[in-house]
């Protein structure tokens, strides 16, 4: 074990640096679609870190959640939100006008 501990230490250090950089990048990214891409890379780096500290079961779940599930959920949410926003924007009246119209209807 002492023969491989240097290599394992190096792996842990590099994976830790990668996770730190990617997490900072994810926190600084504003656009959700771009953030989904950064989060996918972050999940990959986290899985590498978990393997380096010899926790393969945690790495397995992190792979499943981080590289496939999180980007899928974010992208589906963004699509749904954009479609809803576009449907609202296609109407001639904007949301304050909508509120006024609803208030008028309620007043009648």
């Amino acid at each position, binding site marked *: 074990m002492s*023969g*491989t501990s*240097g*290599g*394992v230490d*190096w*792996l842990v250090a*590099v*994976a830790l640096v*990668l996770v730190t*950089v*990617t997490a900072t*990048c994810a926190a600084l*990214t504003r*656009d959700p*679609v*771009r953030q*989904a*891409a*950064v989060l*996918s*890379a972050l999940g*990959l*780096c986290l*899985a*590498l870190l978990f*393997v*380096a500290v*010899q926790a*393969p079961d945690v*790495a*397995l779940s992190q*792979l*499943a959640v981080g*590289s*496939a599930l999180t*980007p*899928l959920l974010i*992208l*589906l949410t*963004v*699509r749904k939100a*954009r*479609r809803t926003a*576009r449907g609202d924007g*296609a109407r001639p009246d904007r949301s304050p006008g909508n509120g006024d119209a609803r208030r008028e209807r309620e007043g009648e």
Partner: protein
Amino acid sequence: MNAWLLAACGLLTAGMPPCVWRACRGAPDQRLTGIALGGTVATAVFLLTARGLDRTSYVDLALVLAVLSPTGTLVFCRCLAGGARQPRRTGAERAPGR
């Protein structure tokens, strides 16, 4: 520190940062290349770590990643393409054939 672990350290040190760099910069469709190559490099790192630490069960991790990484990228492509096609379809009054 055997040759397998040395190769894993080299791949993680020199191969992963460019992928992360590409995944963190640019338009959403240009980040896909970084993610795809990152998954490939991570698969190799998993395999080499499994052999270097003499834990053969870690190979399952690489097997799962080899399945999930292309799946995630394809899902990403599909969602991005759907989001891009949507405005054209509504702008062209729902083009026939689609």
